[in-house]
């Protein structure tokens, strides 16, 4: 193969350093059914990367290709400059926390944690020390002698984590590890997992379908949709500057505006705003919280767009509420604001032109409807 210049796909979070893991043009089909299409991404040392996607997006398949449980139909995986996609899972410096933990039922908690060092023929006394450290790290020392069936789901989760980390992997893969836990424990584990990751400094690849979880924990989010990488970026960036209509809708709520652009002005119903988007039909994402209710429309100028409307429905979310605005010209927009008692009569609303972010149409074509 001819020497090719490494394409600058997705700059890793920590620029300059060689990526820890590099996935290049990986595709995977099951019985001619494509589940991954030409996915490329890089993971930096110490990074917390979340692979986010709904079920069937290919996120677990991608993880299993990194771990070595599946072979890619095409493409390559490199780790620290070495090609690893031909290696069996037991030759990779990668460990996995499985979705349902996969603890060995016939072994005690400490035997489970000591499994990796033991099969690697590490010295017995050293195994004991490392198992103890790993159990202390996840606060499970008291359960060292218990069998997996005797401890709770959350505790099994910690043991699975200790069992993986005790091997000091270059990269830790986590396959929806929190999905079996109830909401409160889940939030607690998100925080613990994140701080544990900072403490050990090992790169984590975390798979989830929960966009909030992804935003709370990740340094970067890779959003997969029908086997394709939609966008990879830091949580704030992916939220503020979604690249595609799908990203904008999947991460948080949004208003998708299918506007007509002519001469640098986007028209959507009665709304007009300046844009640098070329002429033609274009999609814009406008986050509900970027719409404000104002006293009068006097603040309107080239950068701030003003319109009138009345609140047609109200969904209370605690600190905030999500409102539907029925605007002039039969349009409906969503707006998020601090929770208030009543919204009566016709009101003035505004948003900044810069908050209407142009987004690409997604390949599968959904996202056309404005919601």
């Amino acid at each position: 193969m001819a020497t090719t210049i490494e394409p600058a796909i997705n700059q890793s979070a920590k620029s300059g350093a060689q990526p820890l893991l590099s996935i290049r043009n990986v595709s995977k089909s099951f019985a001619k059914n494509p589940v991954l299409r030409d996915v490329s991404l890089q993971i930096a040392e110490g990074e917390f990367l979340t692979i986010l996607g709904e079920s069937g997006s290919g996120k677990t398949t991608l993880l299993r290709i990194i771990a070595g449980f599946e072979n890619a139909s095409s493409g390559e995986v490199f780790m620290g400059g070495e090609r690893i996609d031909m290696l069996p899972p037991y030759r990779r410096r990668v460990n996995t926390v499985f979705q349902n933990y996969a603890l060995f039922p016939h072994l005690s908690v400490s035997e489970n944690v000591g499994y990796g060092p033991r099969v690697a023929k590490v010295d017995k006394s050293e195994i004991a020390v490392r198992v103890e450290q790993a159990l202390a790290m996840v606060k499970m020392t008291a359960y060292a002698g218990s069998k997996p069936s005797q401890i709770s789901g959350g505790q099994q989760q910690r043991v699975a984590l200790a069992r993986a980390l005790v091997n000091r992997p270059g990269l830790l893969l986590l396959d929806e590890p929190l999905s079996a836990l109830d909401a409160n424990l889940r939030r607690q584990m998100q925080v613990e997992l994140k701080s544990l990751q900072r403490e050990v400094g090992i790169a984590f690849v975390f798979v989830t379908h929960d966009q909030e979880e992804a935003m709370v924990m990740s340094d970067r989010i890779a959003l997969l949709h029908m086997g394709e990488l939609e966008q990879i970026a830091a949580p704030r960036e992916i939220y503020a500057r979604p690249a595609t209509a799908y990203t904008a809708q999947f991460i948080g709520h949004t208003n998708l505006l299918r506007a007509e652009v002519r001469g640098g002005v986007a028209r959507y119903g009665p709304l007009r705003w300046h844009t640098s988007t070329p002429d033609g039909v274009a999609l814009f994402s406008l986050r509900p919280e970027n719409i404000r209710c104002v006293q009068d429309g006097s603040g309107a100028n080239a950068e701030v767009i003003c319109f009138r409307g009345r609140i047609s429905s109200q969904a209370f979310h605690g600190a905030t509420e999500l409102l539907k605005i029925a605007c002039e010209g039969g349009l409906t927009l969503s707006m998020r604001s601090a929770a208030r008692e009543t919204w009566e009569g016709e009101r003035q609303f505004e948003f900044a032109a810069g908050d209407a972010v142009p987004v690409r149409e997604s390949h599968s074509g959904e996202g056309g409807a404005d919601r």
Partner: protein
Amino acid sequence: MFSRAYRVAITLPPLLWVTLFLLVPYLLLFCYSFWSVSPQQIIVHSWSLDNYRELLRVNVYLQTLFRSMWIAARVMFFALLLGYPLAYYLSFHAGKRRDLLYQLVIIPLWVSYLVRAYAWKTILGSDGVLNTLLEYVHLTKHPLEFLLYSPFAVVLTLTHIYTPFAFLPIYASLEHIPRNLVEASHDLGASPFQTFWRVIFPLSIPGILAGATFAFVLSLGDFLAPLLLGGPSGIMISNVVVSLFGAVYNWPLGAAISLSMLGLVLGLLFLSETLEKKWSIR
């Protein structure tokens, strides 16, 4: 939830069946084992432990029992030796051929036991398939005598007949092992060989115990294979019982041996049950 009449209606038939065809005969057998036979060949209903004393006193009975156990132990060993790798292969590596192979293991069970035993007779006999072949290729000059009418023939036939019984529980226990445990083991750096010995084998022990028990207990009580293929040196304890109930006409002694065997087998079943419980963790 269900009416009393309904519960009685569904419980009664099997209960009657078990009482009539299992409990009553065993009770009769139990009574017989304490009675005796007069010189005029009449059953005397006088209660004594004489039959059990006879059993321990006459060497032939104990020798035959030990030979039976030794044959059963060998059958158990070979059935596991054949059944385990087969079950392992089917469960983990057979892929698309699995269903077909599984049927191939099961189908021989549909063929009559007698037919299979006779088949071995035609294979192992002096003019049998095997001896003819060996002489034809000049490996032997005379028919090998030990092939038929020997404990060897009995072990071979019983292994053939009872290997599926050892295979099935092992296969079931292997199928029960969550595959992500195997993945977890590989993920933690264990080679396939290490994964087998540290994860798969320990988790299949309950199946091995069940399979071993099946093969041993079924062989121990077998009387057709020794009758057809065992010859004088391959006689097993059940043949003794058969002749005591038949030609010898000493039902009381036959009953005593039967009940002793029953006790032995129940003890074995209890032991294997206990061990299986100890080994099945979930």
